[in-house]
């Protein structure tokens, strides 16, 4: 086992810091998420370490609680879209033929519906709650993951070693998980890191459509929007959640990079 590089350590450290603060939000947050404790946009002080927000709530507390919901929803939705998108894509490639074609074109069809219309239709048909939210986010993203995974897998599927496995008479499932998936991991992991960020941002968009988080709870993107008016006048309340998202994004991707280098070295000898 190689030593973990410094960058990955930093990534792991920040990611776990965010995770821990999300898990222990109730102990860490100095005030309640909805509690109005001060004036509008107070600067940082001993009482309010990050200042207050647009109606006088403690920004730090909102960030901690916001992190909880942001990370949870984004993680679950990303996991959903990845597991579903990747498995569908790999199965489609390995099975091939009309199944591949039908599924791929169906995905194209879903993708072609403008997101706004899709979200509004969903909203009008099903009740808006956390489960719906995660399903909508995950399912909309399945289309993107599917297309990428299929593109990668198609190239691998025609490689000699996959052919060889077929000739050996291996099962489809075996080919998918033992031959194709390990060799497709690198682009998929990179995509995973980015999809996670998109989910974080998408969440706040959906919140404003009425599909997402209900006030007074908020996600980080939502906190950015709540405070955006002050941004151009030097009020930092909108910047802090934005910085948090960026820090999370970078650290998650640092970890992804590290995982990536592990997987590439894993499959090292196979192709030879």
């Amino acid at each position: 086992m190689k030593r973990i590089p410094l960058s990955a350590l930093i990534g792991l450290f920040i990611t776990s810091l965010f995770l821990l603060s999300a898990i222990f939000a109730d102990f860490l947050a100095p005030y309640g998420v909805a509690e109005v404790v001060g004036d509008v946009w107070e600067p940082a002080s001993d009482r309010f370490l990050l200042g207050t927000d647009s109606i006088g709530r403690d920004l730090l507390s909102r960030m901690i609680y916001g992190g909880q919901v942001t990370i949870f929803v984004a993680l679950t939705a990303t996991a959903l879209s990845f597991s579903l998108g990747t498995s569908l894509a790999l199965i489609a490639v390995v099975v091939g033929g009309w199944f591949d074609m039908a599924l791929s074109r169906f995905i194209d069809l879903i993708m072609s519906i403008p997101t706004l219309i899709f979200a509004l239709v969903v909203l009008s048909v099903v009740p808006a709650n956390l489960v719906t939210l995660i399903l909508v986010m995950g399912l909309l993203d399945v289309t993107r993951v599917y297309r990428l995974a299929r593109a990668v897998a198609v190239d691998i599927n025609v490689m000699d070693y996959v052919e060889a496995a077929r000739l050996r008479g291996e099962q489809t499932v075996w080919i998918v998980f033992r031959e194709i998936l390990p060799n497709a991991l690198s682009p998929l992991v990179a995509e995973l890191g980015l999809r996670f960020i998109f989910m974080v941002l998408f969440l706040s968009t959906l919140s404003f459509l009425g599909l997402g988080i209900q006030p007074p709870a908020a996600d980080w993107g939502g906190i950015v929007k709540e405070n955006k008016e002050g941004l151009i006048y030097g009020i930092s309340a909108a910047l802090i959640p934005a910085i948090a998202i960026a820090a999370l994004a970078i650290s998650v991707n640092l970890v992804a990079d590290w995982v990536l280098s592990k997987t590439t070295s894993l499959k090292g000898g196979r192709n030879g």
Partner: protein
Amino acid sequence: MSDISFKMNRRSFLGHAGAAGAAVAGSTLITGPAFSAGTPKKGGNFIMGLKGGESTNSLDPALSTSHVTYQAVRAYSETLLNVGQDGSSLEYRLAESFEPANGGQTWHFKIRKGVKFHNGQELTANDVLKTMERHSNDETKSGALGVMRGIESMSVDGDIFTVNLTTPNADLPHLLTDYHLGIQPNGGFDNPAEGVGTGPYRVVAEEPGVRYAFEKFDDYWDDSRGHYDKHEIIVINDDAARAAALQSGQVQCINIVPPKTAKLFSRAPNVKIETTSGKGHYIFVMHTDTAPFDNKDLRLALKYAVNRAELVQKVLSGYGEVGNDTPINSAYNLYDDSLPQREFDLEKAAEHYKKSGHDGSPIVLHVSDVAFAGALDAAQLFQQSAQAAGIPLELKREPADGYWSEVWNKKPFCASYWGGRAVQDLMWSVGYLSTADWNDTNFNNPEFDELLLEARAELDQAKRKEIYAKMARIVNEEGGIINPMFNQFIDGLAQNVTGWHSNPNGNLMNGFIASLTWFE
């Protein structure tokens, strides 16, 4: 992905757009065309950056429901009368004079001669008649239809336009100041959206939701208005972008400066802000016929649980006044100030809540920032204070999209906005009469209805004021309206824009800023 949080709020607009002047009913307090101190300088291109325009907009005055078309219609067309800057006097525009007959049941308007439309035709009383018909006939979609009810017949004799009402209404001249009722050639029956009127500026370019360009109309009849050579409206729906456009000198005027940043914004060089106290109010409405809001104690509990001062301070940043659970404030004529202000009182709130016998299940307030700017903030503050009184208030954020058709008037408890109306009679009639279309509290109080009809026919001012005071008391006590605040209009101007004055009936000088200001 799309983001509609920037979306403008199409209904937010309604009232101040529709609002005309508060009036001394039946009085003949009439002034001539507006007169501003100082001699206006002519020339220049006056560019406004406005919030509230969509690519779905039309220049048809009847269909105008947005801030941008409100300004555009004001620039190219004119009404018979305007409300003066004091908010209650009347100014003659396309009507040269008017007189009531038959105890206020019949009204004669003398139409001005020598006024030309932008297409070269001369204005006739027939154009006026046709315009009024288009806004009141069976096929109309006009936003002014509410105003036009109660008209029995209309006729023209030479240059006299006559209106016969079903019942006397001393407020009729004020109703005709509604900007939807801009006079069009042949009443707009031929092509209502062509943008031809008698206004000081004629339309030269129209891109809905993007921009409108105007040029001074050379044959305009009134030299005291329309000082710019050119005039342009650019739709800038984003608040920060609008501020940037004014600060960088791309536009000379913006509407709807967000109150939270107004003070910070006014510190920028070359920029000034002007505020107007109006009749618009940011409210929460309960359906008084739907459980649990059919319980008077529960309604009172909620009314006592809202911290009005805090809302004015935090949501309006002080640019507004506290409301008193009626839609009427001192900007209205015949306003009665003896109604005691309802104070924030958690004890009383808790007491009424207990008395209501509510089962403690969540009371859901439906809200979206489309209802009014800062509605979500206001609702969250309300939720905090209500919970402090033990009232289980919960919020449900609704999509901005479809709010006015799917939430407002459908959900029993939601955020809403009213811009106010020209006169008390109209405000009460459109919003609180049990049979009113926009009775958004499902208010049904026979005594109130009777008083309203009595007031309309009452020509004695003092008595009328007394009746209105009684009505206000009923709504304050029984009604479904929680009115925490009246908002101010905040306009942003370049320093060299001169001649601005407030007009309580609407922002940007009741829509006349392009006609009445000039560059110094």
